[in-house]
């Protein structure tokens, strides 16, 4: 239909406005972050702040706890979201049910964090209820769930907030997936697990890994929830960065910028890797689908 030259450039043209915005904003922002992080104090060698950063114990601890929180919250959100989507997919065909499913997304993150705090802190409402029920005798007996060293409160908040997002992203896949496939393979006598593995998994996998990427890096970089529900030590990366940016008369700013640059580079590589992978997978599957 459109075999002329214009056709060849069309996709790029469509992408242009978005690319301009991203390139200008992120490009410049990142560029100045790099410049600042590469500055060196007198009598010090190149990459001073980067060397400093990776020898800084506070940073390494923060990195560890951040990866823990991001990984656990993301994996649990995806598993639960996947389960809910699978079970409810027929229900979600009706618009009003689907609508209800992602209504919780309307709650901003810091609001969710504050709610978790009010409900689950040792003096929170759940603790009061346990006391009234006679399950605990004093505030001290209530298990520590917010501001705890394992970041359970933070993880819980993220799981609560991200499940609707997972459902939102996975639902189109399940709706597109012809349910007849499933019937066919069921009549063929496969177990539930085989059905999932052979029929659903190839469809769900690329989207899931994309969702994993988005959520993982989001949690790694988001400030509000750990600021409210985290602990003094170890801090999560964004909270540490905020401290470094604003405290001690700004002397730690280059260090904070070095941290941001490292995070960005790792995230970018992860993104390229995951997107390449998911595209290959999708292509392969499309071919297989046509063969059937």
């Amino acid at each position, binding site marked *: 239909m459109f075999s002329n030259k214009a056709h060849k450039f069309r996709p790029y043209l*469509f*992408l242009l406005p978005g690319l301009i*915005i*991203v390139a200008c904003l*992120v490009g*410049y922002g990142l560029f100045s972050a790099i410049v600042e992080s590469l500055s060196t104090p007198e009598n010090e060698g190149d990459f001073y702040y980067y060397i400093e950063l990776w020898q800084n114990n506070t940073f390494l601890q923060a990195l560890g706890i951040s990866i823990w929180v991001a990984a656990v919250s993301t994996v649990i959100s995806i598993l639960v979201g996947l389960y809910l989507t699978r079970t409810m997919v027929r229900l979600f065909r009706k618009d009003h049910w689907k609508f209800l499913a992602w209504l919780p997304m*309307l709650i901003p993150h810091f609001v969710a964090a504050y709610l978790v705090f009010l409900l689950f802190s040792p003096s929170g409402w759940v603790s009061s209820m346990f006391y009234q029920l006679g399950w605990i005798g004093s505030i001290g007996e209530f298990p520590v769930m917010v501001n705890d060293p394992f970041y359970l409160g933070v993880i819980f908040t993220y799981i609560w907030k991200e499940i609707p997002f997972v459902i939102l992203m996975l639902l*189109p896949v399940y709706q597109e997936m012809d349910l007849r496939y499933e019937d066919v393979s069921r009549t063929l006598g496969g177990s539930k697990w085989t059905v999932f593995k052979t029929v659903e998994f190839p469809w769900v996998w690329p989207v899931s890994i994309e969702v994993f990427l988005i959520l993982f890096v989001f949690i790694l970089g988001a400030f509000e929830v750990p600021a409210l529900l985290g602990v003094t030590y170890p801090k999560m990366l964004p909270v540490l960065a905020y401290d470094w940016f604003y405290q001690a008369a700004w002397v730690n700013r280059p260090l904070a910028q070095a941290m941001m640059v490292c995070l960005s580079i790792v995230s970018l590589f992860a993104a390229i890797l995951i997107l390449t992978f998911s595209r290959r997978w999708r292509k392969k599957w499309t071919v297989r689908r046509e063969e059937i």
Partner: protein
Amino acid sequence: MNENRKRVLLQGLFLLLFAIMFVIPIFFMFAKSISFGWQWPNLSPSGIDIRAWEVAFRDPRIYQSLINTVVIGGAVVIFNFLIATPAAYSLSRYEFKGKTMIESLLILPILVPVLAVAMGLHIPMIRLGLTDNLSGVILIHLLPTLPYAIRVLKAGFDRLNNDWEEQGAVLGARRATVFWTVIIPLMAPSIRSAALLVFVISLSQYVLTAIIGGGRVSTLPMIYYPFFSSADEAVIASFTVMFALLPVLFLILFETVCRSYLKILKKP
């Protein structure tokens, strides 16, 4: 019979889950906002007091902030659609060189910590006169929202069958006509999700608005955030309820616009 019961059970389970995850927390927040002296281990407050709401609405900038918040959110949604729709369409329908690279670039804004970017962008934006005013804030809000809009809309286009467009083209309709009369209505669910997601993200921005808006552009988070460093839980709760209600209002507005658009389409 069995199938039917299973469905009822499923619906019940889902409603229960929904109540736990959404209805109860909001209700609890509202109760908190009108409570007086609610201390452990009481399950309900010792008194009712609308002081917190008075505090919230006595602030001379509250109405201006509400308007600003909605205007910024609305503008961010519109710009997102203008930019994200062609991008998502392109990513979903075409194969071309460097696609993965471009795709990765487009989600870059959520991969890079916003604090670092905003700090670096502050100087050029001052020089361009884009600080301390609405347009600067709208522009910077594109940063955390655009990647989500592109992802959600792309998922929508992926799901749409190519056949519709081809049929339309075969019948001789112009591509643009096909786009507005066939694709957009079919995309309605994705458009709705994208709009809402973008609005909520824009609504909850504090750091970006504070840096680029410089305190002059007053949005709801600008008034609300400082109260987090006070012990006044009732006031925090009253603002929280507002935060939960704004997207609902936006949704109602958005639905009305969508419905009327579809109605106009159906008429001729």
